[in-house]
């Protein structure tokens, strides 16, 4: 709970480096996972989260003091942080882990919780905005688990985020099956961003302009190790099998209805008896 009504907000944006959205995924030669020797970039949902944080600040310059991007990933993930900085984040934190480690959502949530508690000493985090899911595992769990661990409210699948006048809460419009649901969450809170439909996205992430890229080079990236946070990221799940979906086989054309019926019978499809 926040002690005083008028104060400034700090936004934390966790981002993940994934295989690029436009790349065609293949199984790697050893059959143990996907081929990761391809182009990587920021998870598109996280791009939307960064963009949303930057827009919130643009809308409420007086209210949002700091946007910090954080990633838990191998050395190469620094590039993802640079992209976030070039888009408008003020600072970044890189929790470096070995290349071989593929962290799971619970582990990430625990690490983020440890970090948020660590940051309380300096400047506490009021709002966590992250993508609803990562496009490599499609788990969609990290935001919810983090909120649970921190005992914070959560507003998932957000399509609109508005900070209230007294900066004590956020009004979030969520995408749900029945349509849109608006909820009010007291700060601090966890928000996960959705795509909405192709035609009316939550936002269109901005391009990194060269002047901003240059500025981003000078912005600080704090480096931490997972031990600094005291979290164990050992996977609790074991992958038993990994295979591509069966290849599509071609269809065939039939000349008339009789032939169609014959082929259906051949395939063992029988009529439904009423």
């Amino acid at each position, binding site marked *: 709970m926040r002690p005083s009504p008028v104060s400034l907000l700090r936004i934390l944006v966790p981002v993940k480096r994934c295989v*690029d*959205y*436009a*790349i065609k995924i293949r199984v790697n030669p050893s059959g143990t996972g996907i081929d990761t*020797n*391809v*182009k990587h*970039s*920021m998870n*598109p949902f996280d791009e939307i989260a960064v963009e949303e944080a930057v827009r919130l600040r643009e809308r409420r310059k007086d209210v949002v003091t700091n946007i910090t991007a954080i990633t838990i990933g191998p050395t190469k993930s620094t*590039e993802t942080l640079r*992209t976030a900085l*070039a888009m408008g984040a003020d600072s970044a934190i890189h929790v470096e882990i070995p290349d071989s480690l593929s962290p799971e959502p619970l582990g990430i949530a625990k690490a983020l919780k440890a970090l948020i508690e660590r940051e309380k000493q300096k400047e506490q985090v009021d709002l966590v905005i992250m993508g609803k899911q990562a496009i490599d595992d499609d788990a969609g769990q990290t935001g919810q688990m983090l909120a649970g661990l921190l005992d914070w409210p959560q507003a998932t699948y957000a399509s609109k985020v508005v900070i209230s006048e007294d900066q004590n809460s956020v009004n979030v419009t969520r995408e749900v099956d029945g349509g849109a649901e608006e909820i009010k969450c007291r700060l601090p809170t966890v928000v996960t961003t959705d795509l909405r439909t192709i035609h009316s996205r939550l936002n*269109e992430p*901005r*391009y*990194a*302009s*060269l*002047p*901003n*890229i*240059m500025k981003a*080079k000078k912005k600080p990236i704090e480096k931490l190790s997972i031990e600094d946070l005291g979290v164990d990221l050992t996977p609790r799940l074991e992958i038993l099998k990994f295979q591509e979906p069966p290849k599509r086989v071609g269809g065939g054309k039939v000349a008339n209805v009789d032939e169609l019926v014959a082929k259906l019978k051949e395939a063992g499809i029988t009529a439904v008896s009423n």
Partner: protein
Amino acid sequence: MPFRVLAMQRIGRRQKLFNICIAEPTVPSFWRIPARSYAQPARPMKNEGSSKASEPIRVRKFGGSDNLAGHNLETQTVSQDELLSYNTDWMGKYQGKSKVVIKPKSTEEVSAIVKYCADKNIAIVPQGGNTGLVGGGVPVFDEIILNLGNMNKIRNFDPVSGIVTCDAGIVLQVLDNYLAESGYTVPLDLGAKGSCQIGGNIATNAGGLRVIRYGSLRGTVLGIEAVLADGRILNCLKTLRKDNTGLDLKQLFIGSEGSLGIITGVSILAAPRLAAKNVAVFALNSYQAIEQTFVKTRRHLGEILSAFEFFDQAGHRIQQAHATNPKKIFETGGDSPFFALVETTGSNKDHDDEKLASLLEDLLESKTIVDGVLAQDATQFASIWELRELITEAAGKTGKVFKYDVSLPTSAMYEVVDATRSHLNSLGLYKGEGKDGVVKSVIGFGHFGDGNIHLNVIADSYAPEVQSALEPWVYRFVSKRHGSISAEHGLGLQKTGYIFLAQDISNVGIMRRIKHNLDPGNILNPYKFVQPKKMPHARTKDKIAHSIEEEK
């Protein structure tokens, strides 16, 4: 005296032949191809006995009462629309009246067809993807269309050397996809890659976006198989990088625009497909800024540079107006007069990023560029390229486009755009960008690194007054500055009359001798490219060509 009588007779006969060839006017009146008299002009396919060819020829037939009796023909009746699509070029500017399209499946079939046509004196238009921009791939009258689209197999590929041998009718994109699986890429990339065929690319010596990196087809094509005008199969299909054993015949066919033979097979040196790619687009305040950017880019990037393109504000605005999903890419520089696009391709991302970073820093600090954007992922990569690649399509949607693909000394390249604007303005045809006028827009964009600019004049229609204002004015402008009137698109039909603005008479003389040697009957793609002598003097267009000849 006797000479004049002879001349009149010749004209008389020519006119008679002209009437046989065209039943009715087939082309818009602005474009008047003079009736040229040649030794054997095109004649409609006639009702004749069995073909002399031993192979069965598959022929698609459309309506009509002609009947090539006594053949193993797989005939099909198709709609007039489909026939029209073969007869019309990509821009919808040129339209032929052929009634026959043949789609052979093998080199032997091509050879049999050509031999038959040679015997019967029937003109042929070799056709690939029909994406050419100078009307070289469609009939002028009713030459039969020999479309290579059914010959699309990969014959051989060596993954160590990267040399691939394939049929000429394979679509460029398909070939590239095949090579991608082995980690290679076709050393050629152009906007039409989804439809153009490699045979056509070679016949026109296509340039494209990556000449600055891979060089021209004259260097990367290692071998050619072609069917000559008498049906002989010429085999220069070696797969050797180095082979100095006599005259390099394949070079004759590269860029020959179907006039010396029909390319049926090619072997080409593919380049390794490298994973690290970057693209950045810059906003610049002046043309000189592009030049400075280009110099710095080459110095900083070295061997990883794979494209350097430019476009102007007018082109950018048109592209944005017609983009299905226009993105705000520039924060501040969107209104700049010029833009440059730089692409890098390399094997090591860190190495390339570092080189690119040093270039970007240099450009920003020296204030050579005003603004710029660097792609952060593959989707942004594609969007940034769209700024340049979709200009052509957007121009086509804005109006009817007069295209001029010219080479000029780099410092003078954009002058042709400014000069064209004031020239059209002085004739009252153009009042400014976006203002009302017969000509809506004049834009320039292209391959800066190759000194090649595409001047596009967009008008409401292919109006004759615009046509006559631009041609031969543009060609003369370029020729005076020792540029090329056709950098990469070729002569085709559009520029065949202006060859003397590009080449000395003696050069053309040698070209004609080679043509006469290889195709004495002039059955391969006549009326285009380099035409044999004996051009009539009486027609308007010819007067220009003729008077230019006299000037020299």
